């Protein structure tokens, strides 16, 4: 274990190396200060911690399982042992519930009656609508108009849960524009409204706070792998859009230098094309949505529209803590193309009977690559262990996948969605 001084797992912000901070309008500073104070007090309050534990155990269904994927290991990874951290089994179907329950509790502590959220794939929107329903808060979700078409079932799900979904028709009509609209709403309604940001990005305290609520993923995974195998894994993999599921599972292993950490970004059509969302691989430092981090931008500092088959990874920025972990070399970040992700999606369906989210399929594709490299380097597969964070389930992606694999024609897919 590293000494406290060198510990990476509890980095508190506002800065992570040169990244992070609060690059945002003065109008929101008071709300950010209030949120920070409330969060710091809550973290030190045994009642709050007990409340979170109770919700995690009896509402979300935590701890989530750690499942050894034996057939996937055999058929795709040359026998390297692959364990899946089953965030797909959480209530609402992804890791997102961890963060929304925590932030919704904070909203109530601040006396706010309304939450707003952005969503890409719809997972965070559904989770936010769920938390709002559970806690009796009004909920408005901003979603890029293009994403409302790609994820129409999730729109209906949010509406069934009582949320109002506002399609965003400005800019590229995807996640980044949904965040812009949510910020505009927040500036105007900050008195009664909490902005429930869904990823480990944004101005301080969001990156550190969102990580805090997801740390349970890494803590559980660490205990579970020790219990099941008696040792730490050789590598941990996760997909990265903004990076909340990844920072959550990495947290459990950041201070174990022998554990390699891998974040897999959306490579879209390939990083040699201009259609991808490989922010760390190809981006440059900049400021967007409140934080300094890597950013897909042109030579004028204008944000470049990202592309991915996975709406949840289709974001041109990334959380500042990831930018720092990339810069210091603690985590390896690599792109995975749409094709690689969809191949891995199908493999997991066929070998394990688990339908992964397309987001999480990027982590699976990366896991296959890491396993192959280990084998090429002469590792004994039976003695090699990788944990992949299965951040969400793929029910929402059935239409996209069916169209990708030509199971139904596109018109039917559109209707199904």
């Amino acid at each position, binding site marked *: 274990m590293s000494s406290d001084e060198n510990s990476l797992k509890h980095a508190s912000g506002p800065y992570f190396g040169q990244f992070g*901070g*609060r*690059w*945002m*309008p*003065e*109008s*929101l*500073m*008071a*709300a950010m*200060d209030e949120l920070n104070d409330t969060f710091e007090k809550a973290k030190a309050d045994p009642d709050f911690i007990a409340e979170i534990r109770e919700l995690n155990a009896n509402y979300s269904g935590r701890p989530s399982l750690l499942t050894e994927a034996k057939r996937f290991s055999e058929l795709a990874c040359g026998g390297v042992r692959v364990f899946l951290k089953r965030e797909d089994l959480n209530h609402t179907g992804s890791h997102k519930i961890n963060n929304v329950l925590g932030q919704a509790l904070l909203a109530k502590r601040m006396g706010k009656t309304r939450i707003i959220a952005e969503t890409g794939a719809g997972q965070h929107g559904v989770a936010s609508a769920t938390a709002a329903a559970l806690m009796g808060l009004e909920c408005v979700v901003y979603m890029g108009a293009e994403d409302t078409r790609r994820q129409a079932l999730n729109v209906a799900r949010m509406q069934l849960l009582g949320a109002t979904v506002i399609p965003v028709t*400005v*800019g590229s009509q995807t996640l*980044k*524009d949904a965040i*812009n609209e949510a*910020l*505009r709403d927040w*500036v*105007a*309604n*900050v*008195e009664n409204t909490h902005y429930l940001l869904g990823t480990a990005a944004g101005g301080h305290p969001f990156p550190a706070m969102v990580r805090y609520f997801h740390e349970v993923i890494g803590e559980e995974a660490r205990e579970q792998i020790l219990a099941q195998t008696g040792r730490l894994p050789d590598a941990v993999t996760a997909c990265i859009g903004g990076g909340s599921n990844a920072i959550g599972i990495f947290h459990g292993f950041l201070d174990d230098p022998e554990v390699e950490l891998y974040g897999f970004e959306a490579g879209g059509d390939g990083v040699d094309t201009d259609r991808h969302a490989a922010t760390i691989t190809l981006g*440059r*430092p*900049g*400021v*967007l*949505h409140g934080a300094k981090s890597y*950013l897909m*931008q042109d*030579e*004028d*500092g*204008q*944000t470049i529209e990202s592309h991915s088959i996975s709406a949840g990874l289709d974001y041109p920025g990334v959380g500042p803590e990831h930018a720092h972990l990339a810069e210091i070399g603690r985590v390896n970040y690599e792109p995975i193309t749409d094709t690689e992700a969809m191949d891995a999606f199908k493999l997991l369906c066929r070998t394990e009977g688990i339908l992964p989210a397309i987001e999480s399929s990027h982590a699976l594709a990366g896991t296959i690559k890491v396993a192959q490299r280990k084998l090429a380097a002469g590792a004994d597969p039976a003695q090699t262990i990788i944990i992949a964070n299965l951040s969400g389930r793929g029910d929402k992606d059935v239409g996209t996948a069916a169209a990708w694999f030509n199971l139904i024609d596109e018109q039917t897919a559109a209707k199904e969605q």
Partner: protein
Amino acid sequence: MTRVSSAEKIAAARAAGRPALIGYLPAGFPDVPTSIEAAVALAENGVDIIEIGIPYSDPVMDGEVIQQATTAALAGGFKVNQVFEIVRGITERTDAAVMVMTYWNPVLRMGVDEFSRRFAEAGGAGLITPDLVPDEADEWLAASEKYDLERVFLIAPSSSPERVARTVEASSGFIYCVSLMGVTGARSEVSAAAQSVVDAAHAAGAQNACVGLGVSRREHVEQIGSYADGVIVGTALVAALRDGGVPAVGALAAELSGRA
């Protein structure tokens, strides 16, 4: 070419017994030459300080009208370095102080020092920075000192007294008092919060406190002018330019300044 500061223009207006009038237009809307002509029309019709906005892909403090104009400018191929050509085009033809309003990432991308140097060379007076707070502005503080540029930060109705004090201390030229909690856009009435924001700025030692957001009519200018040192109009001018071209901008500026 002489560089005129916003502080000088505000002092001159004060000496004449009126608030300074500050007019916003986006760079490159509808195209670069027209944005210069429109700014010149502002200056010729009583606007003291011209605020040129750099179109940006993620303008979180802007409402629909300005978003549409800046999106159109970007779609028309606007490049950030053209802002220097626009500033020069205005300062060569008017004696207005020319400020640039910009979200921070385009400046970071070019390099804060390089942007500041080229902007000063073009005759610019200073920058208005809606998503940069003094807490993150070390690089800009250094560059603005080096090139003698004014730093206009914003304060809002939600700003704590400590933040107002800190922001006033970091600002030069004037302090931008956001009149309401919201984004840019014309409103029929000026927010009641505006005066308390100005009072807080003055109490913290600001010499020049100017009010923006939601200001669109001559009566607003008069009302705000009774307690503030300057009045900032944006969306109404952008809508005039969109709907009636340069003549409409000139006519609205004349009305706002009380010349019409």
